[in-house]
């Protein structure tokens, strides 16, 4: 296994229990791994194997039941909810399967939203958001609302939103799950380019082998455990 760069993410014996009836449901049963800066990782596994749970923990949206998580050398369990929010705002970008755009806001306002929580002024927000929208090829559509855009376009708006604060890591949970194969390919090409040219660390969950093939490392989950963690050759873009 080749792990370029220093470890950005380091988890040891990570466990997550969900209350289920009288007992608990162990969604993660001790996951230990590290991901270095600049890696492109695909996480695979059957439905219910704990992939989303793991992503939510890595994305600081949720806290583990047991085990430790260091992000960039920092023990995440020691951070307050405000500090976690700041981390999500500045270091982390999310791309979801269902896009998760605010339906009443224009593409531009959706993309500018993280900058508002970063305290950026109104004009700077609009300028930066417009620039990122142009990068994802939607400069002309900035005043459309999500409902006026196709699924692929919506996902590009969501990617622009994830990118606007220049995060070091992007977590994408089945980003192509709602897209056709052609659009999926465009999105994945864009992700590869981001990873290659800007060194953004990418962790993405997918069910599809051809999507996972874009990554250089593949981790497979089963029943809350890592059962496979292999390096793979990058698909030529």
């Amino acid at each position, binding site marked *: 296994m080749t792990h370029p760069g220093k470890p950005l993410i380091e988890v040891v014996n990570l466990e997550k229990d969900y209350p289920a009836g009288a007992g608990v449901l162990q969604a993660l049963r001790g996951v230990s791994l590290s991901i270095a800066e600049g890696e492109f990782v695909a996480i695979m596994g059957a439905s219910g194997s704990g992939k989303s749970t793991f992503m939510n923990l890595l994305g600081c949206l949720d806290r583990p039941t047991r085990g430790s998580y260091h992000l960039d050398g920092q023990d995440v369990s020691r951070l307050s909810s405000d500090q976690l929010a*700041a981390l*999500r705002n*500045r270091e982390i970008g999310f791309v979801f399967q269902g896009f*998760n755009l605010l339906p*009443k806001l224009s593409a531009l306002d959706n993309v500018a939203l*993280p900058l*508002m*929580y970063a305290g950026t002024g109104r004009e700077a927000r609009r300028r930066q958001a417009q620039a990122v929208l142009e990068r994802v090829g939607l400069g002309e559509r900035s005043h459309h609302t999500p409902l006026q855009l196709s699924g692929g376009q919506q996902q590009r708006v969501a990617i622009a939103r994830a990118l606007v604060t220049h995060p070091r890591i992007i977590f994408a949970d089945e980003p192509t799950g709602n897209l056709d194969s052609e659009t999926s390919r465009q999105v994945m090409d864009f992700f590869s380019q981001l990873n290659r040219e800007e060194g953004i660390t990418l962790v993405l969950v997918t069910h599809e082998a051809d999507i996972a093939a874009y990554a250089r490392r593949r981790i497979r989950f089963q029943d809350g455990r890592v059962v496979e963690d292999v390096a793979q050759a990058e698909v030529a873009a």
Partner: protein
Amino acid sequence: MIFTSLFETAWHALTTHRMRSFLTMLGMVIGVAAVILMLAIGQGAQAMVRGAIESMGSNLFIIMSGATTTGGARVAGGTAPTLTFDDAAAIRELPDILASAPVSPGSAQLIYGGVNWNTSVYGTTPDYAVVRDWAVDSGGFFSEADVRSGARVAVIGAVVARELFGDEDPIGRIIRIRQAPFEVIGVLAAKGQSLDGRDQDDTVMVPISSAQQKIFSGSLRNRARFIMARAVSEKSMDAAESAINELLRSRHHVGVGQDDDFTVRNLTAIAETAASTTRIMSLLLGAIAAISLVVGGIGIMNIMLVSVTERTREIGIRMAIGARRRDVLWQFLIEALTLSLIGCGIGLVLGIGGAWGVGSLTGLPVAVTSASVLMAVGVSFLIGVFFGFYPARSAAGLDPIEALRSQ
């Protein structure tokens, strides 16, 4: 986070549901308008009562012919007055009394030139001007000599002067009161409305002797329907009241255990009761209006709670991209505040307009004070914070993952 962004976000959220926002605000609009209007009317009523009390004169007694019955004084209609001019003169001699005037009232038609005017006529003595603290604007009041001689002279009120004479100078003119000619020798200063809402300037005063001879010819000579007396000071009111009672009982030979054939009433005390009644009434009006303001606040809370539930996913998304709990709290609090303050603004406009309308329709001296405006704004702000806080806090307390999962 920057506050202008918060207001922008709130404004956007509120304009997305225009009708709902408008209906939510309506509660505040009505509440604030009601508070402003009720306070203005209350203040107007109080000002009017104060004015009437001031115009009445101070430390006043009215002594009426007729017995006191339980539950108040009754002057039996049609019965002959029991009070005499000499009673009035004797009361004046009491040490605590400053002045005392017998009054023989009635109404009569006045004629001057081609103009007719119906007004109230008071037959009385010069003491009446002292008792009522009533100055003359031009000319003078009639004298004791005029009363003794039954002179046909009259002092007219400001309204009568205006209606009969217009711009003409009334002094020295002859008017007819029920056909009898009287010379106008003075015009009274304006006093405005009395406590019972009559225009006190719509009156004519003549010597009581002349009134009984020439105007109310059916009335008993030397008898007064009532006597008005003024005590020397507020402190001497109680002493004066018992002195009058004692004096009249002995003058009228009322035996022990017999009912008085007269009634002494402290007008100043009655006026104070009227003033405090008005005060309580206006407080009550304000309180009722304030309740509608609170109801408006509950309406805001209700809609904010619905809004938080509807927008759970939005909250989750905002948290995922970096909103802190307090950013979410502020977002919903500012939304509630915007609703309540815009509602307050519209309510102020309606309330002030309504007060102006009521003032010009009823002639009540309604007054929208800056204190009541400040109070309405302050209370609306507090209502926005108070009723917005609970929904905002429940939004801020959401778990990001659960919020993202909700549909």
